[in-house]
């Protein structure tokens, strides 16, 4: 029987399995699956693992997630207040960095794996590894050095510091975030994660100019990747577009997997990646809430028509909103299984 891992490996190598790999990024839906409030759901690694496995079995896609919510990284760095919602992901409510003096006081944990805020993630990963390790890719989410500060001080304050603040404070924070980044990746890899989403909106020219990207952002990307290697790393700009930088990123870092924005031209992205790596075509999943099933099928077909020729293609979602009707998730996946056949 062909597994999700087989499909991923085949797509990476440009060989053929039964169909293209399909990654469906369901997070908050796990709480619905177990019929527990989101806050309770995310307090327990066993819940998250159980729901990931249930949804994997129920929908038949290829990967599972160890991510609880993005703010987990802030918790590992001292945040102790999240604002939970009933129908969406939690927000960081208490920023660790409230003034520039806090940058000097920011302490990167020596060992992420033994940190109390990582305990439930570890629990979740142990279960996922035991149940589907080697069969289905286990995914983790890690913020790049350059975006992590936004989690610690808010995006507007980070942009203020980045572009207008004291350079020595900015650089100290970036160095600490890089140190954390490396340790976090090591912890995930030691726990058996196969795929790491390297999230960095500052890797997109939707967020910064090409000039700034080349001069400031790319050096930090190179530093991140040189420290941890390219194995299992997926370039992702947090739904911002990336086609303009793909070639540079490949040449400068050796990264070979690109999770496009739903707003990127998929055929163009695929042509830029060419045979040098794997292109992930991403559906605009916010529209899955309201699209009809025919519209969903048509959109999935459009994505495969653009990305599938020549193989080395993976179908994926962004961060599936909580209130997408289950029938629409099924419609998307059935279409992906149909149009993704080799």
């Amino acid at each position, binding site marked *: 029987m062909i597994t999700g891992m087989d499909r991923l490996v085949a797509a990476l190598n440009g060989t053929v399995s039964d169909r293209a790999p399909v990654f469906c990024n369901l997070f908050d839906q796990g709480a619905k699956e177990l019929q527990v409030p989101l806050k309770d759901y995310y307090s327990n690694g066993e819940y998250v693992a159980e729901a990931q496995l249930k949804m994997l079995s129920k929908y038949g896609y290829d990967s599972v997630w160890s991510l609880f919510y993005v703010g987990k990284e802030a918790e590992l760095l001292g945040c102790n207040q999240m604002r939970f919602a009933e129908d969406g992901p939690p927000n960081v409510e208490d920023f660790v960095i409230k003034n520039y003096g806090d940058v000097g006081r920011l302490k990167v944990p020596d060992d992420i794996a033994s940190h109390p805020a990582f305990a439930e993630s570890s629990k979740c990963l142990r279960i996922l590894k035991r149940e589907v390790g080697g069969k289905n890719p286990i995914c983790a989410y890690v913020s790049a050095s350059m975006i992590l500060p936004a989690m610690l001080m808010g995006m507007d304050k980070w*942009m203020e510091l980045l572009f207008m603040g004291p350079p020595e404070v900015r650089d100290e924070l970036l160095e600490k975030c890089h140190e954390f980044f490396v340790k976090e990746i090591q912890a995930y890899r030691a726990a058996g994660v196969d795929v790491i989403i390297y999230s960095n909106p500052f890797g997109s020219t939707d967020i910064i100019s090409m000039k700034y990207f080349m001069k400031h952002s790319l050096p930090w990307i190179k530093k991140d990747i040189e420290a941890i290697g390219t194995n299992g790393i997926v370039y992702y700009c947090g739904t911002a577009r990336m086609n303009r930088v793909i070639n540079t990123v490949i040449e400068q870092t050796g990264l070979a997997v690109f999770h496009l924005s739903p707003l990127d031209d998929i055929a163009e992205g695929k042509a830029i990646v060419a045979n040098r790596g794997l292109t992930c075509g991403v559906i605009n999943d*916010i529209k899955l809430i309201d699209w009809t099933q025919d519209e969903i099928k048509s959109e999935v077909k459009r994505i495969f028509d653009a990305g599938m020729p020549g193989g080395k293609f993976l179908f994926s979602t962004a961060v599936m909103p909580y209130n997408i009707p289950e029938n629409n998730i099924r419609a998307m996946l059935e279409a992906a299984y149909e149009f993704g056949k080799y």
Partner: protein
Amino acid sequence: MNKLDQIIEDYKEAVFDTDRQAALEIINEATRNGITPEEVVFEIVIPTIHSMMENVSSLDTNLAQHFIAAQIAAEITEVMTAKFPESYTVAGSVVIGTSAGDLHGLGKRIVTGCLKAFMIDVTDLGLNVSPERFVDEAVARGAEVIGISSMMVHTARGENGCLKVRQILRERGLEQKIKIAVGGAPYRFDHNLYKTVQADAWAEDGIQACKVIMDLIEEVHK
């Protein structure tokens, strides 16, 4: 190219390079060389924002440029308007904040800075603003527009977001006096979402929001 045109070009370049220090130095140098505060605002700062509005749909502008442009523009306008020889007329009034449960403040900060450059009176209500507060503050300040920023789908579509603001405006008979503009990531991915949440208008980004809001102010004044 005359002196003022050269200053405009230099200022635009500094803003597009997200170089705040250079932009401020250009303005300071200009005022030292006799450029009036009115010229700074009306000939340099506002046209630069207009230029961004025109280029915003292309790949030539980005979030960082919008952020820097808005911050610098607001900063310069505040200093320059204080030096105007005569008092100026405020073009309109806006209250702005993020929707209930949403703690992402970048977008509204760009919009606020941009509106200030156009000498619109803006009250920033902050993060996680309840629908009742949006309306109460708009009424108290005589605002023509409520701006609601949402970074997440559930805070954009949720019952305590724009939908509730609309309901309150309707119940209180204020719909002709106060308009609603929305923005934020979910709207960029679903261009009809503003209709779903019953807003009057939406904007793709912070700079465009400024134009959308000014249009709504004009609509209320008709």
